[in-house]
């Protein structure tokens, strides 16, 4: 029952906020997020049996939830942590508390549901649950050209979902069951299914060339939405490729491996060169795709661990960047790097925290992303003998390493322009972060540090 509680707590909180508590919305949301962390930890420590409810007998579909597999556990932890940080982040406009907090909790419930479902239908459906709140939040409370951005994002995500649905149905028709615990390689049409899955999941993860929705969406979305979406929900596509794609169509994935490598290099190098902060999330997806490519290529569990660790680390670090970027915007009124400067003078702790997450996303040793990235690069060479010569995977890995340099350049450049030098008019009267504003960033920063020093904290679930 604990697994069911993980989904019910946020959903009940949504209902409570909608019908009773505009005034207490923040408290209810906070309570739900904290309760969910407690339930998740309880479920992991004392263990809990799965939950299963038959919702349709022909075809046989069950609301089946379980936290038995390691990758689900890691994703669950990521979800509950980022949810708590997201609820604490951002500044809700007056009178919009209901929309603000219900949307955040709905996105969270959708993500958690998708990660702990063991039925293909609910795996897909829970992810979709997050579509409408994202659409509404960007469209109503977003920044800049919000309506256009909300449309574009929704069209892209709906497109990805429909393609994905087609792929999943082809799988179901061959396996004859929606049960994710019984996935096995299908007999025919592997290549077609794999292509559908790569496009479908890929669009949701902003794989090149379906990436152009991501940067504007995150730039426009209110902080909790961009944190939850980039940090947690986006991992759904990667999770799906690992637990469904690799399990069901290994040969098909291998068939499209060269294509996948080219696309992910486009993510890393081409999109990375665009030098926008919003694109950093798109770019880092490339590394995780590289780990998935390695998994497909050499089938090592090491590559899988690398992918999952990096997914976790990236989720935490991107959520922290969006949380802090939102604070910068709230204090200075802009995120245009050229209009900022010298912010460190008046807001030293903001500068420190932003520096910390910047270093993490560059891959500084001692922070979680480093552990993930180094494992990804190693996994590219897993089982490789120098006598074999360089295969496509190895070449792609070598090129991808240059992405680290690119991200170092733009991250340091951004940091210098925003925080160092003389103060400009926008940053003269800025005050430092208040205690409440620091809490979510510190929470996320601590986790980056702990996992960076002791990656086993996450990897232990994957053995």
């Amino acid at each position, binding site marked *: 029952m604990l697994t069911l509680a993980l989904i019910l707590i946020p959903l009940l909180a949504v209902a409570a906020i909608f019908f009773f508590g505009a005034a207490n919305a923040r408290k209810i949301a906070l309570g739900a997020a904290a309760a969910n962390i407690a339930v998740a930890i309880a479920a992991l420590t004392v263990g809990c049996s799965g939950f299963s*409810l038959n*919702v349709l007998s022909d075809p046989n579909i069950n609301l089946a939830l379980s936290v038995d597999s390691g990758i689900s556990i890691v994703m669950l932890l990521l979800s509950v942590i980022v949810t708590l940080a997201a609820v604490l982040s951002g500044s809700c406009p007056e009178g919009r508390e209901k929309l603000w907090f219900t949307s955040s909790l709905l996105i969270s419930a959708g993500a958690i549901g998708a990660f702990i479902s063991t039925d293909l239908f609910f795996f*897909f459906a829970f992810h979709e649950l997050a579509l409408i709140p994202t659409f*509404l939040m960007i469209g109503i409370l977003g920044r800049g050209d919000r309506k256009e951005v909300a449309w574009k994002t*929704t069209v892209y995500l709906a497109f990805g979902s429909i393609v994905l649905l*087609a792929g999943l149905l082809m799988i179901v*028709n061959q396996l004859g069951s929606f049960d994710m615990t019984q996935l096995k390689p299908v007999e025919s049409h592997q290549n077609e299914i794999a292509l559908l899955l790569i496009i479908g999941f890929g669009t949701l993860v902003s794989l090149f060339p379906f990436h152009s929705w991501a940067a504007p969406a995150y730039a426009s979305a209110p902080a909790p939405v961009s944190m939850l979406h980039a940090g947690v929900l986006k991992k759904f596509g990667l999770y799906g490729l690992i637990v469904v794609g690799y399990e069901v169509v290994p040969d098909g994935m291998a068939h499209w491996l060269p294509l996948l490598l080219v696309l992910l290099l486009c993510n890393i190098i081409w999109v990375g060169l665009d030098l926008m902060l919003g694109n950093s999330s798109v770019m880092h997806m490339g590394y995780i795709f590289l780990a998935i490519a390695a998994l497909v290529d050499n089938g090592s569990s090491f590559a899988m661990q690398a992918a999952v660790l990096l997914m976790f680390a990236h989720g935490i670090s991107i959520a922290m960047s969006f949380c802090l970027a939102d604070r910068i915007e709230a204090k200075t009124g802009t995120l245009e790097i050229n209009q900022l400067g010298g912010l460190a003078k008046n807001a030293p702790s903001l500068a420190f925290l932003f520096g910390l997450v910047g270093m993490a996303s560059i891959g500084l040793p001692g922070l979680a992303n480093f552990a993930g990235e180094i494992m990804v690069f190693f996994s590219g060479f897993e089982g490789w003998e120098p006598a074999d010569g360089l295969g496509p995977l190895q070449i792609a890995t070598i090129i991808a390493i240059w992405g680290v340099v690119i991200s170092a350049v733009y991250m340091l450049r951004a940091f210098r322009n925003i925080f160092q030098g003389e103060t400009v008019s926008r940053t003269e009267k800025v005050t430092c972060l208040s205690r409440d504003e620091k809490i979510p960033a510190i929470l996320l920063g601590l986790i980056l540090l702990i996992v960076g020093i002791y990656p086993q904290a996450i990897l232990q679930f994957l053995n």
Partner: protein
Amino acid sequence: MQTYLLEFYVVGLGVIMLLWEAFASPKNKSKLALIGAGGLSIILAMLIFGRNCESWTAVPDWLSRFYTTGGNSLFFKSFALVSTILVLLMSYDFRSILNKYTSNDNTDSNTGEFYTLPIFACAGLMWMASATDLVSIFVSLELVTITFYVMVAYMRRNVGSLEAGVKYLILGALSTGFLVYGIAWLYGAVGTTDLSKIASMDLTNSYPLLFGLSLIIISLGFKVGAVPMQLWIPDVYQGAPTPITAFLSIASKAAGFGVALVILQPFLASDTVGGNVQLILIIMAAATLLYGNLSALAQTNFKRLLAYSSIAHAGFLLLALSVSDFQTIKFYLATYLIMTFAGFFILNLIRVQDNSDEIDGFDGLGKRNPRLALALTITMAAMAGVPLTAGFWGKLLVFKSIVGVLPWVVIVIAFVAAAAGFYYYFKVIRAIYWHKPANEKPLIIPCISKYAIIILTAAIIVVGVYPKAIECLIGG
């Protein structure tokens, strides 16, 4: 107590109400709608709880040639009853508009029949569900269609309603012609109008048979709103009184599919003719999906949007029909009833209060009435087919039965159609939350509409998460 008596009760109820209205001239005629709904509810309860009675499904000999209580008939009977009850309740809340367009002085003096006609249509729909012979199908179908001619044109001081009535009459007559002519050819080809006999025959793939069948399929296409007989739908839906639009869009369409199941079942199952019938249905389905979804993209009027949406849904249903997945059709129709009625109840409300059918009428609904806005958001999401709403299951089951069975072109069209749906249904959601309200006047939600909307919206979510609820209702 037997099932076949239910139709008699329904007709009896209608006749009594009609006579009472004419001779006792009650003061408040809209109350007739409530009486009718109450009466039909009792009959629905008899249908539901009667199945424990002995000889419940027995049919007397004199009737058995034309009438069955087996197959899907009980499902379609309850479908007809539920939708008629909801239509009558909706009509009650629609009374102010109806009065305005039927009399000079805004009184209800000319509206009596409006509340009794749906009951006669209901009797026809129920009979259609049980008909097993082409002749009885034809007669019951005409009972429904002729009643609809009157109801569509009922607001006689409204040009739109009259125009809709004329269009419906002309095309309806044309389709009746197709049907009779088709039945004649079919009779010529197989020598009987009894569908159960046809089912046991070895059919030959002859031109007269296929020609007759094509004509019949075309005229059924008129009922369900499928290409090439879809042209009347937007205009008639827009012009007809809103409750009647809902009635047409839900009950009439469902009955059309009920009849299509009965007529086409023997032919689809046949080895010789099956392939050809399937081909016709697939082409119709693909054309219907494209027409409905692509035309809906540009609509600015909510009623027309729902009209095109109903064409689009017909396309999905035809796909399921083409692969003989009858269980899915019933499932789809049940979810369609829930979400479409929710949509029409809300539209009805806005129409009565703001006198607008446009999507603009929903501007700023999120501010004016957040709970109604939530209900409409859920309804639109369900129609678009967002998972965990009732609407998704129908589409999922259709996709599941066609993927890998039908040619990939058709499957791609179906997926493109589903994706296009997101665009135009989300346009409504966008109007609700993104636009500023045109007037700040708070909406007053009448009691019946309020509870109907609450129940239907809750049902959308419950079925979305737990579709077994529907599965139990429609029977395995």
